[in-house]
């Protein structure tokens, strides 16, 4: 068990390091000179010497040296300085993170809820058209552009029904539409895997045995079938965490919220490579960490796996 944990943790660290290195190298290939773009404006009145100094400040001499300096910076929590605003990247991330964390955690909770409702009602229902309709909901959900969904929600709930104010309103009111926008595409894969898992478990011989013993359909679904279908669902739910951060780029842009997504969008527009590097590493870290937790949970949730290892 400890061996399994250590191997998985080691792999996670390795993936994270590789993600950092790959995006670092990619962003270094940048043909445009973002420092020059920002500081060459004559109105700033900087001499070529000063620009050279700024460049020396941002870079660390040799390419390898700079890479090592950036890496050690990341390991100690220093992500360098934003080229766009000149402030420490940590500061910008710190300002943006709580907003996105609230949005993403609420959206994840809603996505799981949606997925469970879709999969459970579809499996429990004996009406075939209802079942068919519910099972095609996930394909619809992943086919909807998130930015369009957000705009549609604003249109219907803010402008038509006037339920949610466009500007102002309480924190909770402001959160509702973005959370739905972010949750809908993420709920789709979770619902698909959960529904498929439930179907597979139903096909196993122990289900008719329990039914023959007189268990109600609801009891079988809740107590026996769903429990066994949870494991693959957990894996997929873990995989969606990266999408939460990617989805926040769109959601926060549409709803004008200042979070990691908005920061990413600004970083791309301003070619702010230090910020972009930090965002990519953050996304990879969240993804790797969540999936590590899922892997650790697996043997805990399913004793058969513990016995096997």
């Amino acid at each position: 068990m400890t061996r399994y944990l250590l191997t998985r943790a080691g792999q996670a660290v390795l993936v994270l390091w590789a993600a950092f290195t790959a995006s670092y190298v990619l962003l270094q290939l940048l043909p445009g000179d973002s420092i020059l773009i920002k500081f060459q404006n004559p109105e700033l009145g900087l001499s070529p010497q000063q620009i050279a100094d700024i460049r020396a400040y941002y870079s660390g001499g040799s390419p390898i040296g700079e890479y090592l300096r950036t890496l050690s910076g990341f390991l100690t929590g220093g992500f360098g300085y934003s080229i766009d605003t000149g402030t420490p990247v940590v500061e910008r991330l710190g300002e943006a993170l709580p907003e996105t964390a609230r949005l993403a955690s609420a959206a994840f909770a809603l996505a799981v809820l949606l997925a469970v409702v879709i999969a459970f009602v579809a499996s429990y229902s004996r009406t075939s058209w209802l079942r068919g309709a519910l099972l095609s909901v996930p394909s619809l959900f992943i086919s909807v552009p998130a930015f369009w969904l957000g705009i549609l929600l604003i249109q219907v709930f803010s402008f038509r029904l006037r339920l949610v104010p466009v500007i102002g309103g309480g924190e909770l009111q402001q959160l509702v539409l973005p959370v739905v926008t972010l949750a809908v595409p993420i709920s789709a894969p979770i619902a698909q895997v959960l529904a498929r898992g439930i179907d597979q478990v139903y096909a196993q011989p122990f289900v008719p045995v329990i039914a023959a013993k007189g268990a109600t359909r609801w009891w079988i679904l809740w107590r026996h079938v769903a429990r066994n279908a949870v494991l693959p669902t957990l894996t997929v739910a873990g995989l969606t965490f990266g999408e939460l951060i990617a989805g926040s780029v769109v959601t926060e842009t549409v709803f004008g919220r200042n979070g990691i997504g908005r920061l990413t969008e600004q970083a791309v527009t301003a070619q702010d490579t230090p910020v972009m590097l930090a965002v990519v590493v953050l996304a990879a870290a969240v993804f790797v960490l969540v999936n590590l937790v899922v892997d650790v949970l697996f043997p805990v949730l399913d004793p058969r796996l513990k016995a096997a290892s």
Partner: protein
Amino acid sequence: MRAGLILSWTVIAVVLLWAVVPGLFTGYDPIAGVPVEKLQAPSGQHLFGTDAVGRDVFARVVHGAVNSLSGAFVAVAVGLLLGTLLGLLAGSLGGVTDAAVMRVVDVLLSVPGLLLALVMIILLGPGTVNVAVAVGVGSVAAFARLSRSEVVRVRRTDYVEAAFGSGGRFTAVLWRHVLPNSLGPVVALAALQFGVAILAISTLGFLGYGAEPPTPEWGLLIAEGRNYLATSWWLTTLPGAVVVAVVLAAGRISRSIAKESS
């Protein structure tokens, strides 16, 4: 559900025709507007209404098809070629190559596709072709993983062993037996990725990294309509509905290919 499949192929066929012969579907100019007719609601005259400068929205959607579709084709081509090549190498060579390639794939999978595409856009700069390439790079990992698993499966089959046993050269066997037989699920993924790419390209277009205005690009169209949300719902709703229809159709076709190849 055959009806759904036929409908899906019809949607794709119509959109392809939009891209090839837009003039057949609309007589309006997608770029030059008629200011007098601005912001009209959908009607028999203007199927999708008109925008703020009096351009027919349906004409812009029809003429925009070529941008979205060619972008999606480029994206799928990039993902398919790079990914399948990686998967083929990893699956057939095995050993160190396999391990190395699959670790690279793990890393690519740990960064969400949209973020990867955004990194590529920082690198390549905005523009329609760059956006398409960026989206394609984001799908390399998925293609690599699937084609590798297919290659590994096919390699163990008797006919491949027999081909090797009867003196077939490595590359020849790979090309004649392994590749064609592992392609089914990969083609299904390509169909799915076609829809995903349209979605991603319109998202990047919406964020402003794709086509420049006044080019009619689906994501950009929706972004432009955002400023008239309170009064003119058709500017955003109808182009978005077209995107949903195309992506849904691609997904449905992908599922039917996957079913037939298994």
